[in-house]
């Protein structure tokens, strides 16, 4: 049985797809067979970030409609043979996504994979609700600003009431916080909420802080998840997130901007 992870936020543009690609790759690199699914029907972003957009033949909706088999639609990643991508459809309309259809696909994937990462669309509409419905774990991606925190809080309410686990009265979805695009300098200037501010409202299990970093954009332009850029802070932060999720106890980094003695040793920021 696979563990199903939903990467969700409520608010748009906070880094869900970046995070989905990074952690899916991170899990696969550590030897876990992982599938990552793009639930953002109509937009298709995940395949770009993973650099496989030119290999898309069939998509998630084709599989749901029985027009293609899972094996036909799954794309094996070029960097890691334990990572597979199920892309979203750019052309179909969102109504094709049904709870029954999604459930079937996840069931079938569960037989073969250890982790299934669901990249949720923004909002609290059908697509987002379906992406979280079957989840076991939720990575709540939040930016250090009040509107993002509010939306995450809203999402947490939905996670605890509208999921399959909630409906069946099973153990609730395990919720984790991922604070992304964190800029310690701007926090100090009071332009952004601090980690404490965010935690005062959300009080979640913190999986990691992903600093604001130019490497995210260059990685996505190169069609490569940022976690593969081991020299970048964002890449390291995502590697920490995966390690913590798998049970390793690591101290949190990138909160203060200064990187302690490593920073002093090697100088400026990469």
């Amino acid at each position: 049985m696979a563990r199903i992870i939903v990467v969700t936020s409520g608010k748009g543009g906070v880094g869900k797809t970046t995070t989905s690609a990074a952690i899916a790759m991170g899990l696969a690199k550590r030897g876990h067979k992982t599938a990552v699914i793009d639930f953002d029907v109509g937009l298709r972003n995940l395949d770009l970030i993973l650099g496989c957009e030119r290999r898309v033949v069939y998509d998630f909706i084709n599989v749901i409609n029985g027009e293609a088999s899972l094996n036909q639609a799954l794309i094996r990643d070029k960097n890691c043979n334990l990572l597979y991508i199920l892309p979203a459809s750019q052309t179909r309309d969102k109504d094709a996504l049904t709870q029954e259809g999604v459930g079937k696909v996840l069931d079938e994937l569960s037989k073969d994979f250890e982790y299934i990462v669901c990249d949720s669309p923004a909002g609290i509409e059908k697509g987002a609700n379906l992406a979280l419905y079957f989840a076991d774990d939720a990575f709540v991606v939040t930016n250090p600003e009040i509107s993002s925190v509010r939306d995450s809080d809203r999402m947490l309410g939905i996670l605890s009431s509208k999921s399959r686990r909630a409906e069946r009265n099973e153990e609730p979805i395990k919720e984790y916080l991922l604070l992304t695009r964190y800029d310690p300098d701007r926090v100090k200037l009071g332009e952004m909420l601090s980690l404490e501010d965010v935690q005062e409202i959300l009080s979640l299990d913190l999986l990691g802080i992903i600093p604001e970093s130019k490497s995210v954009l260059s990685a996505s332009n190169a069609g490569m998840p940022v976690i593969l850029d081991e020299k970048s802070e964002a890449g390291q932060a995502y590697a920490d997130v995966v390690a913590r999720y798998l049970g390793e106890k690591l101290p949190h980094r990138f909160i203060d901007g200064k990187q302690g003695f490593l920073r002093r040793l090697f100088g400026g920021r990469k």
Partner: protein
Amino acid sequence: MLNTSPALEFKSSTFFAPILILYTNDLTAIEQTLHEKISLAPEFFKDSPLIIDLRELNKQNLSLDFSQIIQLLRRVSFFPVGIRGGNENQNQQARALFIPIDTVREQGSTLMIGAEAAKQETAPQPAAQPEAATPKEPVRAVPVPPVSAAATLVTQPIRSGQRIYASGDLIILSQVSAGAEIMAEGNIHVYNTLRGRALAGVHGNTAARIFCFDLQAELISIAGDYKTSEDLNKQTYRHPVQIYLQNHALIIKEIA
């Protein structure tokens, strides 16, 4: 034949529906008061089922166009699902509109739809309920009889967009987020930060109180008297407090 799954099943259950007691047949006054009530807790009242109690009206021999009151209720987003205490004529009109009729028994009124019905079995109430106070407002949603239901305990955080309703006391151990709404017919206790809306005594119990560990609420209300965060005193903000009614004024007092 192998065992086939049945097509359907009946289960006994109870569900919660507020009772609307009409004291007047003045439709304008009714509508106005309803709007006021709804504005207090829009999420709670939206699409809520409702039972209409006509006994007070009939005691005063006030006539009422039943279909008009139904239309009015539907317009303000209620779903009337029953009437009680209607006369023959009113019952007939209800039947024509497919609205079930509940018979009011003489001793301690029992309602077949509503959470009260179930609870009454365990905690019988004294017979004949009429609320002590003579009604000053034309419309009031009051449960009949006033129930001393068991307390509801919530251990999970209540997030933005979530709503909790308790027919007795409500005890919450986790935080209540901004954008969340908690309501109780009795008292509310929040042993954590209260950032959302808290409404105690929602059916008119003016003795209800709100207790919380850390007051940052968007709105607090007891029996319909309310304050928004704007009116909250700086001194008690972020402090442990109790809130109660005194002569229709909300008193917020720090718990030392």
